[in-house]
């Protein structure tokens, strides 16, 4: 396992509900099979209602989260407003493609609400910035197979925020429990029109 994208492990998922979105990740950071940290969040906020989940090589996760903090700060200075999810998705895509032949080993996902219309938006990317617009859910990380299986069977459209929270949590929890490289706690953000709720989940610690 010298594959850079599965050295540190980690998983992230985003889902669309009725007038809301949720994005979640695990908290593990490891070195191959050795767990190193149970406090490594992979979800970052870059606007009022714009979130980015970043799985993959931990150094690239940190680097990119800082790159996007810089870029979104400059964006805010120039535009005098925070970045929209759609806009941010294109920023992620072009940033990744700049490194087309020496890519960051990451699997980003974006989730958020449009500030004008309050319409939910989610999307995912490959490591060189190809955008995957999905209506329902996006998964990423070393537990992506497990997440696909969970989301495909648990998800239903137009869930209320509380139900969406339960769905995304169960999907992530059960998926990471079947992946040796993910787990060690989870964090879930539920984003609605008038608030963002962050919850930290207790999980198995093995």
């Amino acid at each position, binding site marked *: 396992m010298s594959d850079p994208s599965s050295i540190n492990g980690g998983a992230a998922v985003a889902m669309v509900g009725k007038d809301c979105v949720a994005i979640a990740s695990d908290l593990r950071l490891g070195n191959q099979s050795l767990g190193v940290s149970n406090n490594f969040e992979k979800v970052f906020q870059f606007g009022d209602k714009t979130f980015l989940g970043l799985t993959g090589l931990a150094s690239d996760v940190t680097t990119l989260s800082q790159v996007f903090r810089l870029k979104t700060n400059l964006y805010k200075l120039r535009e005098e407003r925070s970045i929209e999810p759609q806009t941010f998705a294109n920023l992620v895509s072009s940033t990744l493609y700049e490194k087309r032949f020496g890519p960051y080993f990451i699997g980003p996902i974006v989730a958020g609400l449009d500030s004008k219309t309050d319409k939910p938006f989610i999307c995912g990317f490959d490591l060189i910035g190809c955008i995957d617009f999905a209506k329902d859910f996006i998964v990423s990380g070393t537990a992506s197979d497990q997440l696909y299986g969970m989301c495909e069977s648990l998800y239903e459209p137009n869930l209320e925020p509380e139900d969406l929270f339960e769905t995304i949590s169960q999907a992530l929890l059960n998926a990471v*429990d*079947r992946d040796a490289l993910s787990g060690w706690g989870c964090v879930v953000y539920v984003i609605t029109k008038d608030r963002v709720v962050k919850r930290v989940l207790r999980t198995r610690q093995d």
Partner: protein
Amino acid sequence: MSRTTVASEYSAEIQSTPIEHRFNPYSDNGGTVLGIAGKDFAVLAGDTRHVTGYNINSRYEPRVFDVGDNIVMTANGFAADGKALIDRFKNQIKWYKFNNGGKKLEMQSAARYIQQLLYGKRFFPYYVSTLIAGLDEEGRGAVYSYDPVGSYEREQCRAGGAAASLIMPFLDNQVNFKNQFIPGTDGKEKRPFEYLSLQEVIELVKDAFNSAAERHIHVGDGLEILIVTKDGVRTEYSPLKRD
């Protein structure tokens, strides 16, 4: 080092370096399987798609079999090995009857025997994930699952094959109620285990396979569920996505 090779048909050279062995005796024929044990029944389900690479060889090639004595079996992965293993086991059941006056082969004996078959080829393994399902001596549902070289375990449920990684966490959640807690206990009290009814199990199996077929290209076309009860083995077929 031993002598190993000739450079070509016309060369008298005998070299001591091994030549490249390019015949690969294995392939992957896709498909996925799933077994669940209930209170007084067990099911073993598998899709009916048979593939090599991106080719769909057949849309209906059964991969779960009634091997007799109220036991159903599947060996998913490399189809030729799967067939060889199942044929050998069927044959053994036959001989067991000849030698023991028609006595039924019990699940736990069948399970142990399959381990012997698999481990017997430890150094040229059967490339399959094997599952058997049936009823134990008390009449309770039983599922046994194996790795390719015979390590085995009795379980409540198990997914195997191409989409095992998609289905298994779903089963943890919906059959063994993993990560489910009783509301109002602040996550302190786990939802206790209880057996599902046959009807619930079949619906669960269909959901699992529809999800797998949605996301995995080696899964699809048809779903065949073999149901074992004290009254024998029954088969249910339903279609899956064909794309």
